[in-house]
């Protein structure tokens, strides 16, 4: 479904990704872990189409389409969703109006009819239940005055509403207490399906106790330096990142 090859990217003069290669199959859940500053959030931003980054080499294909040719809107229409690490507050726009506009904008670009009011409300209700988002938060301005946990639940709520083919979760666990972590994970797990893939970016292993990945990759210095099964996350939690990063350095030397 997603194929990233030898990706190099920079912001300003700083090169952040230095030859990242990664491939995700349909229906798979991949976790990306790595030390701070390794390029995890850069990868998430580039996948979603943030224009601040410049891709200097390499390629990304999504279902065979050159993703780098699509802008942020077109990527969402193609089925990519980014759950933001820092969801943006938008005063004056209600959560519901925001989602209806987004949903219908996507449908229009896919040449589908707008969703009916009845279907929309039924969907809102079902998706809100999934992450235990209460009615007040649905009607409030997007993320305005939400707690950290509410913002992350709102991201997963939006994900459930938009039903992406590939969901990228950028440190969705940061700032969550144990209950919110459970709720958010439950929301993500109930969306797992044979035709939907997830890229879970996290600094800590604890999220992966709840959202169990098929593959775990270690991102360091702008490249994937090690890959393994779900047990790799536990090993990283125990031993830290240094042993892999050091081994990689030795290998290269």
């Amino acid at each position, binding site marked *: 479904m997603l194929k990233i090859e030898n990706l190099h990217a920079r912001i300003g003069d700083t090169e952040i990704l230095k030859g990242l290669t990664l491939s995700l199959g349909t229906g798979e859940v991949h976790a990306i872990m790595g030390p701070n500053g390794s390029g995890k959030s850069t990868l998430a931003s580039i996948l979603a189409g943030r224009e601040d980054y410049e891709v200097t080499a390499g390629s990304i294909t999504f279902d065979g389409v050159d993703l780098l040719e699509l802008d942020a*809107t077109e990527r*969402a229409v193609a089925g990519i969703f980014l759950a933001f690490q820092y969801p943006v507050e938008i005063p*004056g726009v209600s959560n519901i109006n925001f989602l209806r*506009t987004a949903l219908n904008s996507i449908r229009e670009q896919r040449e589908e009819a707008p969703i009916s009011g009845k279907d929309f409300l039924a969907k809102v209700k079902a998706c809100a239940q999934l992450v235990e988002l209460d009615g007040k938060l649905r009607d409030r301005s997007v993320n305005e005055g939400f707690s950290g946990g509410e913002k992350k639940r709102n991201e997963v709520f939006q994900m459930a509403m938009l039903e992406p083919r590939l969901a990228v979760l950028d440190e969705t666990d940061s700032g969550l207490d144990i209950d919110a972590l459970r709720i958010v994970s439950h929301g993500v797990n109930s969306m797992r399906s044979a035709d939907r893939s997830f890229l879970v970016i996290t600094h800590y292993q604890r999220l992966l106790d709840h959202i169990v990945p098929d593959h775990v990759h270690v991102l360091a210095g702008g490249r994937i330096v090690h890959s393994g099964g779900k047990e790799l996350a536990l090993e990283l939690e125990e031993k830290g990142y240094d042993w892999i990063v050091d081994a990689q350095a030795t290998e290269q030397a």
Partner: protein
Amino acid sequence: MSEVATPSKHAVLATRITDACSAHGVVGEGNPQAIAALEALPYPTTRQERWKYTRVTRLLDIAPQATPAGTLPEPVLAGLDAHTLTFVAGQYMGDDILDEGPEGCFVGPRSVALERYPQRVLEGSTDGFATTEWFAALQSAAPQDGGCVIVPAGHRLERPVVLRHHMPSGIGVAQPEHLFLIGDGATAEGIIWSDSATDAAGLLNGAITAKVGDMADFSLEIVQDEPGELHHIGHHHFTQGANSKLTVRTATANAHWLRNDLHIVQDGVHADSTFHGCYLPNGQQFVDHHTRIDHAHPDGRSNELYKGLAADRSTAVFNGKIMVHKDAQRIEAYQSNRNLLLGEQAAMYAKPELEIYADDVRCSHGCTTGQFDREALFYLRSRGMTETAAHNLLVQAFLAEVLDGFREEIRDYVHDVYARRLGWS
């Protein structure tokens, strides 16, 4: 032999305008103090602080022609249950008058009010800007017809009053004057709707005066919807008594060149004023809102919010003055002016002015001018919205704070005008 001095250009303009107004019909003789002021006052220039960004030299060349009879477009608020009076270029069109006698309510043109109740009208009239501002003096020197709404003490006007003024095609001139006299404890709602033909040009130099009594409650919605190339100067003057409540909302939907002077005087304790406004010039349009509130007595409160966008090569000006007099202790005055620039060549000049002579007051002001929040735009686009849909939503959200205060019919209409202008729909 005596030399005859060449009259100044603005004196020639004054004569041309007053002659044109008189030819079409004025109401009354013209205010003698205004006529004197018109001769004494200098013509505004950009060297004066109040006119720094507002070039009025171009107005000197306005030469009104005979007003052609055009068809009057259907009013936008046709469906509203209201008492409506229509004026075309300062002339009353003959709608029904509400007249409950000398002790009751009156809703009709000022010309008729002056005939039937000269005492009531004159008692309530104030000079407003007429002795201090050249264009206001010009208006008051040759005032034309407008609405007159008299609500005596303790009365409530059941239906809102709509005063509609239309400028027809061609280079015209009009100096309408609207008057609201809201007695002690009285309640009323008004709408002043200025519109024009799409090829109207010339000068609309109008006045709105309201005198709001003690414990009265008056709300006024002003809509300026003038396509074409009209120059519009509005002199909006409000005086309110103790424990009264005044709400003035101004929506500039369409304007080629517009200057609004809005002045509220709190002339009693515990007065409460709310004044909001919104504007969205595009092309090479010019929109200037100058506001001033005088807190002259203790324990008053005021809340001012003006929001606007300047697109393309347009210019918007906001100047908001809060004057807190020496005895006006414990007042609360809040002013906020927020602007978005949508074009690289759009300009916004914003200036808050606070003059405080009392020592126990709460005043705040905030003034911002910026562009779209890039982070918010990316967030919306990452959810599948096109750039246009995302802009649309952010502008709606930005203006909602002001637009939502208008009645639904006005809010929806102004929103649609803005939406069409920005190509949202």
